[in-house]
């Protein structure tokens, strides 16, 4: 069955490609193909985002001795669909004194950047939309643009709670960018390449990077997951929309679909951080110990998703367990602990590679 689907997929994409190039000139065909891929990705990840929201609500319920949504559709599977439908049909409010242009721009900024980042991930050997040679750098760059959207939202909505939230977001992202970058750099030392597909290739032969780099890699992973959680503005780093302090934070003045973009972007960002971790530490779509390597029909994308979901679950676990940090403690954690540790770790990794102590 599965083999059929995979083959069909490949055949279908191949057929569409051939057909496009046969009916129109090469330039137009390429552009059409891009658009088609973009639409497919958009649809896929809008749905993925919705189900991540549902997963979060279910996981929260399990942590909290509840059942979670279970009335809408079988096991509550359509709950977030209903939410999306409602949000689409909800009125878009605004106030008089907002900066209209920036206010309307901000949610798109956030959602577009997070959707763009998804393009470069190697979900499986064939399933990668955009394999550029500076993949890691691209991810790193794109994921930090999103904060501009948050800053715009906070600034443009002319609301003091929103402004405080946006400013917190700014300082949080600027600080934790460093840790994300440096911990990724540590791993790039091992791979010697920024191209994501090559990073996966390195792991196919030499084992997952977290094993190859052993101690420094594990430290890098811990730092990355802390900084990554902070980058996505999730608890315990959710100072941006700290409910008990700032109400709804930077998106206080947004309603309907514009709010939904922020809401969805948070979950897609979580997916991105988890995917980066999977690609750089856990061998992307590679199966553990190569157990499905010989099986040609096995959808490798499944391994990728399983790993991503495990890391997302870990991040949800943080959220439903830890209290929130205060803003100065947040900065202390980054600049006094994570950053020095990261720099030392980078040197250790360099020594490990120099002395050929890798496994």
């Amino acid at each position, binding site marked *: 069955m599965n083999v059929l689907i995979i083959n069909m997929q490949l055949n279908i994409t191949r057929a569409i490609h051939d057909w496009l190039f046969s009916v129109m000139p090469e330039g137009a065909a390429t552009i059409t193909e891009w658009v088609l891929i973009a639409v497919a990705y958009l649809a896929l990840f809008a749905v993925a985002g919705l189900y991540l929201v549902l997963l979060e*609500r279910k996981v929260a*319920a399990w942590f*909290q*001795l*509840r*059942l*979670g*949504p*279970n*009335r*809408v559709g079988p096991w*509550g599977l*359509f*709950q977030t*669909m*209903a*939410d*999306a*439908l*409602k*949000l*689409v*049909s*909800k*009125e*878009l*409010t605004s106030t008089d004194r907002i900066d209209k242009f920036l206010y309307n721009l901000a949610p798109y900024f956030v959602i577009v950047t997070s959707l763009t980042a998804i393009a470069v991930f190697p979900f499986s050997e064939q399933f990668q939309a955009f394999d550029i040679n500076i993949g890691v750098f691209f991810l790193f760059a794109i994921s930090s643009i999103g904060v501009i959207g948050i800053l715009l939202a906070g600034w443009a909505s002319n609301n003091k709670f929103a402004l405080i939230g946006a400013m917190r977001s700014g300082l949080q992202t600027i600080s934790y960018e460093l840790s994300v970058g440096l911990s990724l750099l540590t791993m790039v030392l091992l791979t010697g390449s920024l191209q994501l597909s090559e990073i996966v290739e390195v792991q196919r032969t030499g084992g997952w990077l977290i094993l190859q780099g052993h101690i420094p890699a594990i430290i890098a992973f811990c730092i990355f997951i802390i900084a990554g959680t902070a980058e996505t503005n999730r608890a315990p780093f959710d100072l941006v929309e700290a*409910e008990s302090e700032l*109400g*709804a934070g930077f*998106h*206080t*003045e*947004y*309603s*309907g679909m514009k*709010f939904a973009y922020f809401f969805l972007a948070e979950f897609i960002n979580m997916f991105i951080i988890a995917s980066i971790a999977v690609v750089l530490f856990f061998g992307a779509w590679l199966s553990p110990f190569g157990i499905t390597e010989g099986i040609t029909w096995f959808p490798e994308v499944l391994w990728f998703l399983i790993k991503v979901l495990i890391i997302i679950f870990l991040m949800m676990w943080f959220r439903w367990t830890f209290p929130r940090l205060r803003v100065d403690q947040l900065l202390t954690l980054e600049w006094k602990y994570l950053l020095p540790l990261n720099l030392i770790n980078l040197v250790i990794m360099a020594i490990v590679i120099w002395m050929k102590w890798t496994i």
Partner: protein
Amino acid sequence: MGVDKKRFLNQYEAEGLKQVMPEDFPGKVIPGGNGGNIVVTTLDSVINWGRSNSLWPLYFGTSCCAIEMMQTGAPKHDFSRFGFEVARPSARQADLIIIAGTIVNKMGPVLRRLYDQMAEPKYVIAMGACAISGGPFYYNTYSVIKGADHVIPVDVYVPGCPPRPEALLEGMIMLQEKIKTENMSKKVNPIDGFDEGK
């Protein structure tokens, strides 16, 4: 604020029936409307399905009923099963105000502002005796509004002092049923004409 007699509308008065309630009765009855002869179109039913299953309440509780409202969200009663658990701290993102507690004269304008800030479609549940009529604070008090429906239009009334969590759940499910009978083309904003007593 306070009880402004111009705003009263009596159900019997509205239907042209005999006046049975005294003129100075400090309460208002929203005339029964929304009859059964509504043609439910497919689009309506899809939108209504979405809206009814995704009622996000506003964080809003003024007094004792708020504790029972919290209890409704807690493990034993758990309104998250119906998708109600996404409580929003900002009125812009909420669909539903559960007026859990007494509304006093100072709070009245705030409640009204919160209601006005909410995006359409918006719904209101008056939870408990105080929100319905002033409850135990009806007599001899100078500061209590005798019923939150003097301030904003209410969809569902849940009696009790405070109502049990089951009662609130029942009220919320009733609201879902009400939403399922809505008609997009005939839907009127409940606040239209509210201040004039229509």
